[in-house]
C-alpha cells in the first residue's frame, strides 16, 4: 500500500529484534474476544489513487459550486478572491506537515508567521494583543464570554439581537453548562442596531455585552457609547467581526472601546469549504487582560547567541500545564488557516485592503440600489458594508430554494437563520463581494422579478 513503507522483509527483521513471532503477538494485551483477526467485514478494501479520486469527484459534482452560479451568500462566511500564491505557499511541506512549534529552534517559520499574524489581527481590531487563533468565530465568541466571566466574576451576559444566530445558539449552549444567564432577543426588522437599548440595560451584574459589527443583517452600529456604559458598570464589551474585510473601510472595534474583539477570519485567505476549517480571531484591547486570554500566544525573545527569535509563551494559562485550571481546554489552533490569512493580508497590505473594502462596498451599493427597483422588494438597511437584508413578499426561504433550483444562489433567508421566529416570510441576507459582477447582480434582479410576478 502506497503509504506504508515497510516490506515483509523489514517486518520479519523487526520482529526478530523484538523477539516476537508476529505482529498479532504484539497485541497480546487485547482480550482475545475483542481482537479482530481479519479486516472488518462489509467495508471496501484498499483502492488506488485514481479510484479514490474518481469517487470523490463524483460526489463533488453533485454540488453547485459558488463559481458556477451568481452567488450572494454571506451570513458569517464570505467568498472573496484568494490570490493564487496563497494556496501554493500553504502547501509547502514545511508549513503543511509541520507541527505546533513546541521546539522553537526548528519552528521559527511557524513562530515568526504567528507573530506577524498576531500583530496583523491586533492592528485590524484596534487591540494590544491577539492570540495565535482559535477554531472559528463562534467558539472565539463563547471563549470571550467565558473570559469576561473570569475577569469580572459576574455571570450575566447580554447578547445583541444582531449577533449571528449560530453564535447565539453556541453561547447559550455553553451558558447552560457554566451557569451564566444569557439575555437575548431575535432582531426586529428595523434599520437600527440595538446598541442604544443594550447601553440602557447594562447594570452592576452584567459581565459582558456582545455585539456584532457589522451585524448579521448587515447593519453597522457605533459601539462607543455602549462601551462607555459597560465600563461605568464594570462590565466588558465584546465585539464580534464576522467579515474582517469590513475593517478595511470601517473604524475598528478597539478604537470604539471594545475590550475583547473576536471574529471569523475565513473571509481572508481561507475560502468557503462548506463550513470549515475556519479561523477564530481573538484579541484584547488592554494588555492587562493578556493572562486571562485563552489560546496560544507567540512572543519575541532572543536565543543563546543573541539573535531575535520567537517562542510560544505564557503557556501556564493553557491546558497542558494548568490542566483543570486552564483558561480554556483548547489545544489545536487553526495554524494553517492563520497562515493563509496572513499571506493574503500581506499581499493586500494597507493599500490593497482599503481598495478591496472600497470595491466590496461599491458593488454592494450598486446591488442594493438595483434590487430595490425590483417590484415588491425593499432594502432594510440604512447602513451596510457588503451585506444587507432584502425584504420580499411571500416565503423568502422557499424563494431562495426556488432560485437555487434555477441556478442562482440568492443569499441566506432569515427563515433559515431563525427557524423559530416569524421572520420566514420576509428576509434574505444578501452579500456582495468583489467576486460578484454586474452581470451577476442583473441575473439576481431578473430572477427575483421572475419569481415574484
Amino acid at each position, binding site marked *: 500500500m*502506497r*503509504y*506504508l*513503507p515497510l516490506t515483509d522483509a523489514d517486518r520479519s527483521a523487526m520482529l526478530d529484534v523484538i523477539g516476537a513471532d508476529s*505482529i498479532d503477538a504484539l497485541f497480546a494485551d*487485547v*482480550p482475545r474476544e*475483542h*481482537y*479482530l483477526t481479519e*479486516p472488518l467485514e462489509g*467495508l471496501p*478494501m484498499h483502492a488506488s*489513487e485514481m479510484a479514490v479520486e474518481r469517487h*470523490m469527484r463524483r*460526489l*463533488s459534482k*453533485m454540488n453547485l459550486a*459558488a*463559481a458556477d452560479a451568481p452567488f450572494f451568500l454571506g451570513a*458569517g462566511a464570505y467568498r472573496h478572491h484568494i490570490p493564487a500564491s496563497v494556496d501554493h505557499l500553504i502547501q509547502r511541506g*514545511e508549513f503543511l506537515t*509541520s*507541527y*505546533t512549534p513546541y*521546539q522553537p*529552534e526548528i519552528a521559527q517559520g511557524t513562530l515568526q*508567521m504567528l507573530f506577524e499574524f498576531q500583530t496583523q489581527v*491586533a*492592528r485590524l481590531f484596534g487591540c494590544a494583543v491577539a492570540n495565535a487563533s482559535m477554531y472559528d468565530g463562534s467558539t472565539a465568541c463563547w471563549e470571550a464570554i467565558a473570559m469576561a466571566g473570569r475577569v469580572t466574576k459576574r455571570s450575566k451576559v447580554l447578547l445583541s439581537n444582531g449577533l449571528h444566530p449560530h*453564535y447565539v445558539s*453556541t453561547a447559550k449552549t455553553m451558558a447552560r453548562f457554566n451557569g451564566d444567564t444569557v439575555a437575548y432577543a431575535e432582531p426586529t426588522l428595523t434599520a437600527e442596531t440595538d446598541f442604544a437599548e443594550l447601553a440602557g440595560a447594562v447594570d452592576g451584574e452584567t459581565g459582558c455585552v456582545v455585539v456584532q459589527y457589522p451585524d448579521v443583517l448587515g447593519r453597522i452600529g457605533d459601539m462607543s457609547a455602549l462601551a462607555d456604559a459597560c465600563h461605568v458598570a464594570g462590565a466588558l464589551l465584546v465585539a464580534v467581526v464576522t467579515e474582517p474585510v469590513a*475593517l478595511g*473601510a*470601517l473604524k*475598528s472595534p478597539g478604537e470604539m472601546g471594545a475590550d475583547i474583539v473576536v471574529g471569523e477570519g475565513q473571509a481572508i485567505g481561507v475560502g468557503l*469549504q*462548506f*463550513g*470549515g*476549517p475556519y479561523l477564530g480571531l481573538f484579541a484584547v484591547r488592554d494588555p492587562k487582560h*493578556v493572562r486571562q486570554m485563552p489560546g496560544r500566544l507567540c512572543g519575541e525573545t532572543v*536565543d543563546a547567541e543573541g539573535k531575535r527569535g*520567537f517562542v510560544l*509563551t505564557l503557556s501556564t494559562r493553557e*491546558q497542558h500545564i494548568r490542566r483543570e485550571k486552564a483558561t*480554556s481546554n483548547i*489545544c*489545536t489552533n487553526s495554524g494553517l*488557516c492563520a497562515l493563509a490569512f496572513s499571506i493574503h493580508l*500581506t499581499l*493586500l*497590505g*494597507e493599500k*490593497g485592503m482599503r481598495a478591496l473594502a472600497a470595491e466590496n*462596498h461599491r458593488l454592494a451599493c450598486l446591488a442594493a440600489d438595483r434590487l430595490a427597483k425590483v417590484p415588491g422588494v425593499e432594502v432594510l438597511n440604512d447602513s451596510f458594508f457588503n451585506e444587507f437584508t432584502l425584504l420580499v413578499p411571500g416565503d423568502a426561504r422557499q424563494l431562495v430554494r426556488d432560485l437555487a*433550483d434555477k441556478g442562482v444562489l440568492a443569499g441566506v433567508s432569515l427563515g433559515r437563520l431563525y*427557524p*423559530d421566529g416569524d421572520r420566514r416570510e420576509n428576509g434574505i441576507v444578501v452579500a456582495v463581494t*468583489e467576486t460578484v459582477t454586474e452581470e451577476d447582480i442583473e441575473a439576481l434582479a431578473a430572477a427575483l422579478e421572475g419569481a415574484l410576478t
Partner: protein
Amino acid sequence: MSAPNVSGWKPGTPEAPSGPAGIETVTGNRGLMLEEPLIFEIGGSETTGVDFASPLPAGDGSARLAGLERSEPIGLPGLSEPETVRHYTRLSRQNYAIDCGIFPLGSCTMKHNPRLNEKVARMPGFADLHPLQPESTVQGALGAIDELARWLLALTGMHSVAMSPKAGAHGELCGILCIRAALEARGDARSVILVPESAHGTNPATAAFAGYAVENIPAAPDGRVDLAALKARLGAGGLENCNVAAVMITNPNTCGLFERQMKAISDTVHAAGALVYCDGANFNAIVGRVRPGDFGVDAMHINLHKTFSTPHGGGGPGSGPVVLSEALAPFAPLPFVRKTDGGFELIEEEDGVAAAPRSFGRMTAFHGQMGMFTRALAYILSHGADGLRQVSGDAVLGANYLLRSLEDVLDAPFGGTGPCMHEALFSDDGFAEGIATLDVAKALIDEGFHPMTMYFPLVVHGAMLIEPTECESKASLDQFILALRSIGERAKAGDSSLHQAPQLAPRRRLDETLAARKPVLAYEG
C-alpha cells in the same frame, strides 16, 4: 504549595555558547539557511501584491457606512507578489516537518499527509460551497460527510457520531456535555469526573470547563488504571450515592500501554451509574483491530488529524468527530447530517426539535470541518479495511522495534510489562547529574530529527514518549535509533556539551524565561 513541577521541565535562559559558531557572514545568512525580517520591517503601506481595476470615483457610498468610516491607517504592511513568495518560502525553510523526516511525537501521530487529500479537498464542488446553501445544491457534500461517518462508526463499533466538533479538545467537550445532558435528563446530575494522572491536559481542562470537579484515578505499578482503586472510589459512600458522572480513559493510555481491563473498567463504571469517556488520540494503535464500542465506551473523540492523516499545518486546524453509544446518541449536538430515502438532510435547530429533542444544542457555527472530512475520507478509502488494519500493525511494530532497540541505553519504565502499543515511553533515570531530558531532545535536533514528546505523561519523570507511526521505513527508524543511542550514552556519561545543543539549527536555545517575564506579543516598531 502544590506539587512543584511534577514533570521536571525547566527551560530557562540558555547557557552562553561555548565557542565560535563557524564562519561569520555579512548578511547573517548561512548558505541555504536564510534570515528573514518581519513583514513590518520590509513591507510598505503603499505596496500591494494584488491588483484592482482602476478606482472608480467615490459615489455616495460612504453615506451608508453609518459615519464610521476608518480615519486611521490600520498599520498593515504590503509586499509585492515576488517578495511575498520569497518571505514565506524563507520562513518555511526554517521549519522541520513530516515531509523532512521522522516526527516521533508520542500522542500526536505525525504520519505522512498524502497529497491526494489536498487534491480532493480542493475540488471546487467541495471547496467552493457555502455552508448555508440550500440542501438541494450540496447533496454530494452531505453524502461525503455521511460516508465518512459510516466508516467511523464501523471502525469503532459505536452507535452514532457527532461530526461538528472542530478539534480533539472540542470533541472531548462534546462528549462530556452529552454525558452531562444524559445524567441531567435522568435527574441524576453528578459533580465529579475521574481522570488518570497520565491523561492529556485537555481531559481535566475539559471536565472543569463543563462544570465538574476533577479527581485523579491512580495507576497501578504496571502503568495501567488501578481497577481496585477505581472500584473503591466509585463505591465510596455506597454505589447508590455515587457522585461520579464519568471516567475519562485513554486506551491505549499515554504510557503507550493497552488497558487490558478496559471492559471491566466500563462495567464497573456503568454499575455505579456513571459513563465512560474514551480519549481517542491513540486510536492509531488499534484501528482495524479493536473497536472501542466492544469495551462499553459511551463516547470517544477521534482526531482526524492524527489517525486519519489530515495535516497538522503548524498547529491546526484539526477535526474531532465524537462516536457515541446508544445511551448518549439522543443528546448529540446539532446540527447533523441524516440520510433519507430522498437524499441527505442537514438537521439544524428547526428540525432538531422533532428529530433530536434531547440534543444538548449547538456547539459551533455551521456543521463541521468539511475540509478535513474530505481529506480523511480520501485517506480511508485509499487504505480500505485491509490497509487500516495494516496501519495499526505497522505502527505498533515500529514502536516495539524502537523500544527493544533502545531499552538497554534508555530507561523504559514499563518495558518489562510486555509489548508497548504504538508509542514507547522512556524516562531520565540513569542520566548523569545535571543532564536533563531537555538536553537529549535538543541534541536530537543537531542530528536532524524533531525531538520526541518530552515531559509528558507527567507520571514519569523527564518522560520521553516516542511514536514513530506506520509511515517510517526501517532505514528511517534505524537512523533514529543510531542517533538516540549515541545521545543516550552521552547523557549517562554526563557529557555537558549536551547543554549547548542545538548548535546547528536555525536558532540556538531560546530564552523562554525572558519571553514569559517580559512578553512581547506584537510588533511594536
